[in-house]
């Protein structure tokens, strides 16, 4: 089976710092791959290369068995890669529909923005993702963390993402909302999406992911199937930067 995404030998340096150093990771349809590591381990940087925010110094990205060129967020979107960034990447002064369709606005036949249709579409998808979501017309600054997260997720779901990147999707959420996001990840996975998940919460990662990759100082320490390792093994990989001795 060809992987959905095959990241091969990616490197990038900022100034003198090697933020990502020769990292290779793959992702299959219907799979959740977790990226773990300390702050500054290079997880977010790696993911930003895939989502087009940064350009790698070297290495290749293959999608569906073909070499992909991703130089901008627009390119990434063309490959159906959607990203939910750690900072949520919402324009706080605009309401949910404007954010959901940002950069991909629906137009009327004269080329003007079709705000009513965007609002109607937003209402529809929100009813599915987060039935409690009512503040369609208000700026997203007026929303709770969970509601803002739903807007970011709705953006990915609405445009039929095949590859979803979630950078700390539950960091700012309460218990209930975290559960909602976890359920959604499972649902999207069942639909055949490939998901890269970044989190600091090892426990959560063991529950949600099929495989986890651990990074330290820009290097990939290793990728393990979650059923093959214990949480302690993962923790020691994160801390020691060494592959655990396999118990079996």
């Amino acid at each position: 089976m060809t992987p959905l995404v095959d990241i091969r030998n990616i490197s990038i340096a900022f100034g003198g710092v090697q933020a990502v150093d020769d990292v290779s990771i793959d992702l299959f349809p219907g799979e959740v791959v977790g990226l773990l590591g300390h702050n500054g381990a290079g997880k977010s940087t790696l993911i930003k290369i895939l989502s087009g925010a940064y350009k790698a110094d070297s290495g290749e990205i293959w999608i569906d068995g073909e070499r992909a060129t991703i130089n901008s967020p627009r390119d990434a979107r063309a490959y159906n890669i959607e990203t939910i960034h750690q900072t949520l990447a919402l324009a706080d002064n605009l309401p949910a529909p404007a954010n959901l369709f940002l950069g991909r606005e629906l137009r009327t036949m004269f080329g003007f923005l079709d705000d009513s249709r965007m609002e109607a579409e937003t209402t529809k998808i929100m009813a599915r993702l987060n039935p409690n979501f009512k503040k369609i017309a208000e700026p997203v600054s007026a929303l709770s963390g969970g509601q803002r997260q739903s807007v970011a997720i709705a953006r990915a779901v609405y445009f039929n993402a095949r590859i979803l990147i979630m950078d700390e999707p539950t960091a700012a959420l309460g218990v209930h909302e975290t559960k909602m996001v976890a359920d959604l990840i499972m649902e999207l996975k069942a639909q055949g999406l490939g998901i890269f998940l970044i989190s600091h919460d090892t426990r959560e990662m063991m529950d949600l992911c099929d495989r986890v990759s651990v990074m330290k100082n820009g290097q990939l320490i290793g990728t393990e199937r979650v059923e093959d390792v214990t949480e302690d093994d993962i923790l020691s990989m994160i801390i020691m930067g060494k592959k655990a001795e396999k118990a079996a």
Partner: protein
Amino acid sequence: MSTPDTPNRTQSGGQKANKKSLIDALELDTRLLGMIGAFILVAIVFNVLTDGRFLTPRNIFNLTIQTVSVAIMATGMVFVIVTRHIDLSVGALLATCSAVMAMMQTAWLPQFLDLPLGHPLIPWLAIAAGIITGGVIGAFQGWLTGYLLIPAFIVTLGGLLVWRNAAWYLTNGQTIGPLDSTFQMFGGINGTMGEFWSWVVGIAATLAALAALWAKRRDKQRHEFPVKPLWAEVALGGVIAGAILGLIGVLNSYQVPAARLQRDFAARGETMPEGFTAAYGLPISVLLLIIVAVVMTVIARRTALGRYIFATGGNPQAAELSGINTRMLTVKVFAIMGALCAISAVVASARLTNHSNDIGTLDELRVIAAAVIGGTALAGGIGTIYGAILGALIMQSLQSGMAMVGVDAPLQNIVVGSVLVLAVLIDIIYRRRTGKG
């Protein structure tokens, strides 16, 4: 939230809810109401202080034509400030555009294209050259800001010195005039539409506004969104129609002095019929401002460009991650600002009937103040076109009003400066209370 409170609080809450629902029903912008209120207050106070001279048709006419130049630029400044930039060069850029247009009319076109003075193409070619000049210089400053990442404050501070003195070199520091007579029609009192055409424009504008209201309502109904009660819609339409037609009525009641009419008739080789009167009506410059305001509002609200301007102002990173080319956006925003400086230059120089060296001096401060008084937040992401125009009108009313009352010039500036700071303070408090922005 939905749990019942103590009876006492529920009651007061109920009253509050009633009051709120009236404003909600009309879907009025409370900030807009506040600004209109402030403007009416200023007008009434000066009207009392001047024994009724402030709110005469003549003074209202003068106020509108004095406001146009700053107001046109203020609409562009909204976009600049919303994207978290600033443009300190607008007054100087106005001078450069004015110099280019003046030289086109009086020297370059007659010399290089052999167009005789007074040729009908001259004003239009001059205006086109001015707008291109403004747009290109604006785009260049936007490129320095967006692509070379020099802060807009520095780029345009430099621009203030550069363009003011580029204008000087274009004209050798001389006053250039008189400008083409058709060109002068854009200046205000030298170009008004007369009673009949003013009513035509007023009625057309009213119908267009009502049609827009109706179309919006239909559109909402089609998507099954809640709509305002019909009475609220009708009331709003009535207020808008009343405001437009009221303004036209006032401008139409400002009579052209008999001596001037006689001169005009004499110039055409006719004699003035006994008892002939004519009103000035809507100045062409004010019509120009209205057109600019409508176009800029449509850009802000109905186009992707406007959406990206506001999104970038709200969160530049988010805009970039959404695939918006924020660098190019900066170039576009400054190019629009430059083109608007040129349009203002048409109005300002036409009003003076010549280009002078100091044209537009300190306009950058008036323009920024108008935008900020009009509710544009320097932190970015928030601002409206109508707010900036109202801001310009409030500033001009203060200035003219104080001049009419006989306030010393230094004190006038002290008051205007204080009002600017106070307006921003009120805005900050308003936002904090309503949680908007």
